[in-house]
């Protein structure tokens, strides 16, 4: 069972040494201020390959943009006119995302006045003003579900027949499908768990080592392809507001996280419109060991001057956050939001 860790005390302690660390977020403050994160145009569908430019330019440029200087906003033609409902996405997040995502709450005794003092320190520093906007937020994460949200039974329209999900009347396909696995299905071995996986018609099926069908999930490029309607029976996690701002998501779509992928879904048609981001969904919990698989320094270029490895601390990037890690114990010391 995971332990809840108070982030704020660690963040405050580190503030003096590393200005720019986001403070742990008090609950329930500042949501109205947060809505500015929806300013960016939605990614939409098409060929604007540099849409993430604003998010990737680093703190100084971001602050300049918010200062009201005229910079043409980049957005897709089909998305125009839908931005008038700015804040809708953030509101939806308020209702669902933060309710369902894991949270790190403010520790007891951390008062609003103290919050304000931390914020002021950032202002005086001159570099961290942009973090003010986040002082009212809770830190939230998207985590990959250990069971991948497997669904029991068979996809709609298919019937379970001898451990396979097939259209009614196609029993003859069983032998061919089961015993002549396509050569390209090796790609599912990357899951590296105790189950056996087979793909068919948009869905990935999980089998026990004994060959029993255990469930299925729709997968990226299959039933979760651009243009496909979101499978109604498939659960997902709403994307918390911070991820929306970090990855430059707009208001036009519902953003849904599932099995390491952020999808943009048309709220009216439920059709997938964009693959917005890939996430590892690893569990980074302050006070716990760093997850396996982050041995290489990987901090984004624009933050390397601020978060550089040293003999007493490492910094590792994952899914929009930078984490400070003790090199000796590999314990995570604090989580840092890169955008605020």
């Amino acid at each position: 069972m995971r332990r809840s860790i108070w982030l704020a005390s660690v963040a405050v302690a580190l503030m003096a040494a590393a200005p720019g660390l986001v403070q742990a977020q008090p609950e329930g403050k500042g949501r109205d201020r947060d809505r500015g994160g929806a300013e960016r145009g939605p990614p939409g569908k098409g060929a604007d390959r540099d849409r993430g430019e604003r998010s990737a330019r680093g703190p100084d440029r971001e602050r300049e943009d918010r200062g009201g200087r005229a910079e043409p906003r980049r957005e897709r033609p089909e998305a125009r006119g839908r931005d008038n409902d700015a804040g809708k996405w953030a509101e939806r997040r308020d209702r669902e995302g933060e309710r369902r995502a894991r949270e790190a709450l403010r520790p007891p005794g951390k008062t609003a006045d103290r919050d304000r003092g931390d914020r002021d320190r950032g202002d005086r520093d001159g570099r961290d003003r942009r973090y003010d906007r986040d002082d009212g937020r809770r830190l939230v994460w998207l985590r990959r579900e250990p069971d991948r949200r497997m669904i029991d039974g068979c996809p709609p329209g298919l019937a379970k027949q001898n451990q396979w999900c097939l259209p009614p009347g196609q029993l003859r396909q069983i032998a061919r499908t089961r015993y002549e696995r396509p050569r390209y299905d090796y790609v599912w071995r990357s899951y590296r768990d105790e189950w056996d996986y087979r793909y068919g018609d948009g869905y990935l099926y999980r089998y026990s080592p004994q060959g029993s069908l255990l469930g299925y999930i729709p997968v990226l490029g299959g039933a979760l392809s651009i243009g496909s309607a979101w499978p109604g029976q498939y659960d997902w996690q709403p994307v918390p507001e911070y991820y929306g701002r970090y990855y430059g998501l707009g208001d036009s779509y519902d953003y849904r996280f599932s099995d390491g992928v952020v999808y943009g879904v048309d709220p009216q048609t439920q059709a997938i419109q964009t693959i917005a981001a890939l996430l590892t969904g690893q569990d980074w919990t302050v006070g716990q060991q760093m997850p396996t698989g982050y041995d290489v320094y990987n901090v984004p270029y624009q933050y390397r001057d601020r978060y550089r490895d040293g003999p007493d601390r490492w910094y590792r990037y994952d899914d929009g956050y930078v984490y400070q890690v003790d090199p000796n114990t590999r314990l995570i010391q604090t989580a840092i939001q890169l955008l605020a």
Partner: protein
Amino acid sequence: MSRMLIRGALIVGAIAVAACGRSDIDDSGSAQPAEASLASVLERNPGHARLEAMIESTGLTEALAATGPYTLFAPPDDALATAGGDADMTDDALKAQAAQLLRAHIVPGALTRADIAAAVDRAGGEGAKMRTMADAVLTFTRDGERLVVRGPDGPAVALSGDEALARNGVIQPVSGLLLAPSTAPGAG
């Protein structure tokens, strides 16, 4: 006159390198990323046409053009040509497999060749490990002077050619696939 010609050639060469998304080195020795995104850099690189086609067919172009950052380990076209056995991984019918294969070649953050080398040297014999977007772990080691990377059940492949530092990540060319294709039907 000859000096002017040489200077002109150097400028043209520098522009060509920047256009390909390769890294420049500033006065401090730090790598400087190009303005182009990963998707744009790949699009301009004829050596990764098949990889680019797979990214397009799977709908990952937007993600690789956006904030990131990601590091993409880019197999050559001839390796990807064998990825689907007799089938073509760029075909729409294999989008799901192509997407999973691509995720197995992408890790979070910006990993320069120097970062990887430093981590390998620090890690010693066990190698340095990185988590992929397919929830698997890659292991980096040295093979003589070369840096090599091995995926789950995959062969060790070399980090080859020049890295390309894009605005939102890094493209690290590798000499082969990080997952080993099945050699026979039913062996997947």
